[in-house]
């Protein structure tokens, strides 16, 4: 088996060398893709990641000249899909879609995760999550300063968090502000919005879903890297001098080692599709996620930056305990 593979590689090298010396455009490689491409989505059918993946796929089919099959491989916030993809053949026919924290946070948080940032090539981001802290419109506070003041007056506020990575960020902000909160784990963003509107939780984490509920909810502070398009007046934690809050993308990735020209072709087709009017109108108008396209090595740099940021937060959190 191994012999056969190395023989294949030698033949391929010879072929490439031969073609290169002859100065031909490489027809065999330019033909990629010659069969359908599969995108493994790291989340269940029907969610935001799945919807975006399917829409981008539909819009990229024409450019690639092949159908794109979307397969849902949910579990652990994209971990199952990333683990499967890490071991997939890097031929360009199998790629994946997940979010930044699948690569930057998960490997640091769990021993079960066997991959790291370096195991993948990064294709393109599609849209940016809109991370922020929201409260019911009737809440007796409007800004993070109000929250800090109320907490210091002795009221322990409750906070609905969808994931340990969100808790990590809020815990840090609380320590920096010298306050404590009741951190309540809640499954799913919509459920958090429900409990906040119903008055069961004082605040909650939203990755953008709060926009669906109009003026029922107000944004207290932004936990993203920059102010949100949908709430331009609300400050970020960083503006308040609290160094937390990073960009999170819905993004496409691939097993490491795809031939450069194939990767290039995928990046071109998929990032163009992500910018198409079709995807833009659904993502921005209906889902409330602004299209943000970062590709290839720039996207890798983004993931690495996020990884370093989470490492700092995890180390600080350990030191605080």
């Amino acid at each position: 088996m191994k012999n056969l593979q190395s023989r294949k590689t030698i033949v391929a090298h010879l072929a490439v060398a031969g073609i290169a010396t002859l100065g031909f455009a490489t027809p065999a490689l330019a033909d990629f893709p010659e069969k359908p491409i599969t995108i493994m989505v790291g989340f269940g059918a029907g969610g935001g990641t799945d919807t975006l993946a399917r829409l981008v796929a539909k819009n990229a089919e024409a450019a690639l000249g092949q159908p794109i099959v979307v397969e849902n491989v949910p579990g652990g916030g994209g971990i199952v899909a990333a683990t499967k993809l890490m071991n997939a053949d890097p031929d360009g026919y199998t790629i994946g879609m997940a979010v930044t924290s699948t690569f930057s946070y998960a490997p640091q948080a769990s021993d079960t995760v066997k991959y790291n940032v370096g195991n993948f090539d990064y294709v393109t981001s599609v849209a940016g999550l809109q991370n922020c802290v929201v409260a019911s419109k009737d809440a007796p506070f409007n800004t993070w300063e109000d929250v800090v003041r109320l907490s210091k007056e002795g009221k322990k506020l409750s906070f609905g968090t969808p994931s340990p990575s969100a808790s990590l960020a809020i815990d840090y902000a609380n320590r920096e502000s010298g306050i404590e909160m009741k951190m309540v784990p809640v499954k799913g963003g919509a459920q958090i919005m429900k409990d906040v509107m119903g008055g069961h939780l004082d605040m909650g984490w939203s990755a953008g879903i709060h926009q669906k509920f109009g003026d029922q909810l107000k944004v207290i502070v932004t936990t993203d890297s920059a102010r949100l398009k949908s709430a331009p007046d609300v400050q970020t934690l960083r503006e308040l001098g609290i160094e937390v809050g990073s960009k999170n993308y819905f993004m496409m990735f691939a097993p490491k080692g795809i031939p450069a020209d194939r990767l290039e072709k995928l990046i071109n087709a998929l990032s163009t599709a992500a910018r198409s009017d079709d995807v833009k109108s659904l993502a921005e108008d209906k889902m409330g996620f602004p299209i943000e396209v970062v590709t290839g090595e720039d996207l890798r740099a983004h993931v690495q930056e996020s990884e370093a940021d989470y490492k700092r937060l995890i180390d600080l959190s350990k030191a605080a305990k």
Partner: protein
Amino acid sequence: MLDIIITAFQDALTVQTVVLIILGVFIGQLFGAIPGLSALTAIAIAVPMTYYFTPVGALAFLVAMNKGGTVGGSISAILLNTPGSPEAAATAFDGHPLAKQGKGLKAMRMALFSSVSGDLLSDLVLFAVSAPLAVLALRMGPTEMLAVILFAMTIIAGLVGKSMLKGLIAAFFGILLATVGLDPESGTGRFLFDSPDLMDGLPISAVGIGILAMGEVLRQLILMRNQGNVSHLPMGSGRKEDETVSWAEYRSNIPTILRSAGIGTFIGALPGIGSSAAGFIGYNTAMRRSKKPESFGKGNITGVAATEAANSAVVGSNFIPLLSLGIPGNVAAALILGAFVVHGITPGPNLMQEQGRLVYAVFAAMMLANATNLILGYVGMRFFALIARTPAQIIFPVIGLLCLTGAFITTGEFGMKLVVGFAALGFLFRIFDFSFVTFIIGFVLGPIFELAFRQTYILADGDISYLLDRPVALIIFGFSIVTLLRTMYRHMKRRAG
């Protein structure tokens, strides 16, 4: 207002939509009736296809499948004692004994009528009072949910079986297996054995297929191993009263159906508890209310009616939190939510204002699907009854294969291995008379119980006055205690007497 409704009906009554509804109901019933598959499998496969339909067509098709599945699910439970999903498990309690008495068609008819009645009533509630019921969902915070789940558990505890001890062992084993996966608070892995596949826990579909369907297949095969070429079901007597449900019989079950439909509608309006619990609660409530509780489990047709009306009623009212808050109550609703979003419709508080016409068209499609469900179900049951009479040595191996196929479709190779393991467990449960009902309920309600408990614990922050400030939760906790005491009293009386 009225003109919107009329236009909406016109939208729903196009040739394309009607064909899609009929096709959807048919597929839903077929997938529901085949053990190992379910309407959920069909919906999961169909969702990506519907991206190319019109919005009304896509939603009508998926809703029709969902409804068809509620009818189909009763068929394999009654005829083969192999419920395809936990929601129909209680249907088999009395449905299968009836089939064994040659009254399979009668049981299936009652299941069909009750299922469609329950579904219809819950749809009407959805159309009429969706908004106030959405407020109900809003009022139910973590503590109130904890109380409701506890209450559901104490009601279902009545189905513990002959031995309280064995029933509790099974229930706690179910809860133990439900802890597999990531800890909801810290994200720490529990019983993962280094397998990322286990991060989201053991898939309910694989556990359900293994314990309920495949375990029964194993038992039947071993039971019938020397019996040669015979069916596990007797020939029908051919007598009309053994095959049909008379108006008098339906009428005498109307109180049960209404009560079960109410239970199912309430549970469906609260996201997260689900149709399995509704089925069991409907069954047990009917048994408690009955003058002859001892006849349940031996072929009392009221048991079939109670279960089917309750689990089907969840399907309609599940749309209340889905449409008004964008919160899917179960996996099928989550898939349908995805279809909404792809067609540019975001369920939420403004849906009615922005997309009133579409919502009414979906309502019209629901009504049409209910009617189709009734007609197709009525025509189809003879066909299924005929297939079920295939000799046991042929039909049970085929079902076994279907179970494995179903597991493969929903959860891949990993799911197939789980089905085999849980089939062995289900077989042992049956042989040693452990209640697989309490096991399944422990498994299904375990995760939401744990989450609600931890949320309440964190929110209370060591202060008992937090609980005292929540009268709704306190009242439901009170109900739970009363129910628990009554169940224990009955159990002891039965053992003594």
